């Protein structure tokens, strides 16, 4: 579906990756991760086919490729009910925006923070 080569997160051309490189230890699991660029390309394809929300999810996913597993867990946990205060959620959004260059996810979290606040599911002050 695409003309450009698909590159993995570590920049390898997907068409040039071979089993042999895995066996020789030349490539690791990290070299087989999907890249932000590829996820955005998939988002375009989804959007074009009429799946607007699927596309948005893939764009947010693209922003998360650079975030470590551990930090993803932490962010997920903060978004669960009653875990973070309104201010902490806003700070999280800020961090996503500036440190992780994840503006879509940041906006999503910011909107969530407003709603959590209004609906009373932010962490209560100690």
């Amino acid at each position, binding site marked *: *579906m695409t003309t450009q080569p*698909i590159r*993995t*997160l570590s920049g390898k051309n*997907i068409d040039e*990756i071979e*089993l042999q490189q*895995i*066996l020789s230890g030349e*490539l*690791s*699991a990290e070299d*087989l*991760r*999907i*890249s932000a660029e*590829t*996820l955005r390309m*998939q988002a375009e*394809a*989804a959007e074009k*086919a*009429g*799946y*607007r*929300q*699927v*596309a*948005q*999810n*893939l764009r*947010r*996913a*693209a*922003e*998360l*490729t650079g*975030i470590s*597993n551990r930090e*993803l*867990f932490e*962010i*997920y946990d903060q*978004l*669960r*009910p009653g875990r973070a205060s309104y201010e902490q959620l806003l700070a999280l959004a800020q961090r996503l925006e500036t440190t992780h260059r994840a503006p879509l*996810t940041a906006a*999503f*979290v910011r*909107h*969530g923070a407003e*709603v*959590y606040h*209004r*609906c009373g*599911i932010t962490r209560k002050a100690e």
Partner: protein
Amino acid sequence: MKSKRFEKLAERPVNQETFINSWPETGLTTDDSPDDPRPSLTLENGTVMEMDGVAREDFDLIDHFIAEYALDRKTAAEAMAKDSVEIARMLVDIQVSRATVLQWTRGCTAAKIVDIIRQMNVLEMMMGLTKMRARKTPANQAHVTNRKEHPALLAADAAEAALRGFHEIETTVGVTRYAPFNALAILVGSQTGRAGVLTQCAVEEATNLRLGFKGLTSYSETLSVYGTQRTFIDGDDTPWSKAFLQAAYASRGVKTRFTSGTGAAALMGHSEGKSMLYLEARALLVTRGAGSQGSQNGSISCIALPESLPGGVRMVLAENLIAAMLGLELASGNDALASHSEMRKTAKLMLQFIPGTDFITSGYGAIPRYDNMFGGGNFDVSELDDWYVLQRDMQVDGGITPVKEKQVLAMRDRAARAIQAVFKALEFPPITDAEVLAAVSAFDSRDMPDRDRVADIEAAQRLLGGPLSVVDVIQALEKTGFAEIAANIFEMQRQRAIGDYLQPAAVFDENFKVLSALTDANNYQGPGTGYRLEGKRWTQLQDLPAAWEPRSYLKSLAGSGTKKEWLTEKNPTTAGSGPEVVIAVSPAFGTVIHRSIGGLNLREVLVSLMEGIRQEQVKVRLVRIYHTADCAFIGHAGAGLSGSKVAVGIQSKGTAVIHQKDLAPLENLELFPQAPNLNLDTYRLIGKNAARYALGKPVIPVAVKIDSTARLRLIVQTTLLQYHENQLVDPRRAPVELILRGKEQSL
């Protein structure tokens, strides 16, 4: 007074179930609670100010999420103004494409969606589902688990499930800490059975995510969403946390779908007085708003709750249809035990089976029920042949492929040996040859040796927490002679980096070609369009393990019959005289057919008839009729030759008649149409009665056993025997006299 019929009915399996009246205040109502809102929407400058009767300032978490992310605010005003009946008709109308319907539904609120669905009956919903399903090619998903969490058995079962054509296989655990091993075992097993099968291990989110990140699983459908805020909170999540989690999975190339279902909120006591379907519509809008490509719904584990209510099964179909009309991939339930009654269970299945969904069941037990750790499951291995027959009967693709025992054994052996090799290479607790052997032929985990569970759990945690990943698995397989499995798992990883299978309704075929809503979009618009079960796939689904070739039927019978000629033909016969009984046999009797349909040796049948006749001191004459193969006409022709005017007519399949010359051909003295129920004693009595008719003595008709299943079991064989009988009919050939060779008493 008590009715014996009511007493019997009360014992029927269906009466083990609970049936109640609706009680809307508690959420125990299908789709029409008085508290369900009427559809409404107020937009101001693109902002939702009011939705389904709730003002923006009163929105809960879910309202906010739907208003912001799920509703297409550009088309909403028009969609909401459209008559619900008209949209319902579009769902049924083959002239209206799926894409057109999606344009209308994307602007609908939850109440509007329910209002559309309320206009439809079950048949119309099935039509809707056939058209609105995202992927053109239907598929199915399997459960592979076992009580011992035995890795060799898991691998073997996953291989078999893959061979049987399941596109997704999910496992789960009894003990959470086993999860990494279970995920590993079904990964190796599935890629042994068929390349490109997607796998998941259903455990709590943190572990699940780690398994996905390690490359041990390729999809996740554990993301539950609900229709009320309090249910969400009880589930310790929000639409935002679930949406984020999903994006996290996608960021590692893992496919996800959300899970919801009618009854969940009522079960948890948080229905807020709303109907089940309305709340499910909200959950599905959250699903779409979060950008999930799909949904597993259809009440799932709550199935018995909607089924207790009037219209409950209709509603479960309705929720499936809602998922599809929101453009979501649909794994349509049928996974949790839906009834004690086989009739009810199957009837419910048909609502998804006939229209076809992206996954007809969201978990078919590819293991015995005993081993199903997803709460027992609805269908399991013991019902596979029933499933195959239903597919073949209706020419419907239910997503499961018939296979032969030999293939299954080979594949199970390969998978069990592969996981054994992986365990050895990665220094996990060894899997012995005895365990491999047991796994190949096992029925369930009771056939498996016990393992050291402490050591397994310890090693499984090492896999989860340590540096080992799918790459080490690939290397281990390659080095130990399982190159093809290594290659398949490697390709799964490569596909994760490509991400085509993150698109809606994506599965892989056996060549890693992605079939999704983008590459294999459902284009159903009536006859001649959409998915058609034909060609190679139809041939495959016809090939039941139990199906046989009718052309070789006679050959299969010949093996069990007498080879030596035992009936010799003499000259054309003439009419006899005096008290005799003629036995008139059909053209194939004792020539090409030597056994009755009931399995009796025809020579013994003949001798029994003769013995019965001679008991009454009456002579017997044997003749063969060539001009007809019809039992009545054979008997009548024999009677015409008989000195007493009485004859027994008999066909190769064993059907017999006692006839008399003066009767019309289709009349008779006694008829024995159910040949399978006749034994040698019956034939002896038939002979005896014929002789007594010949002598003019009083006769008590022969009593025969009545077996109402005989026709069901043997109509095919009857047809084939009649065919071979007819092949030997010669209309111009006169009856011939026969001699029975060999001693009668030697039998």
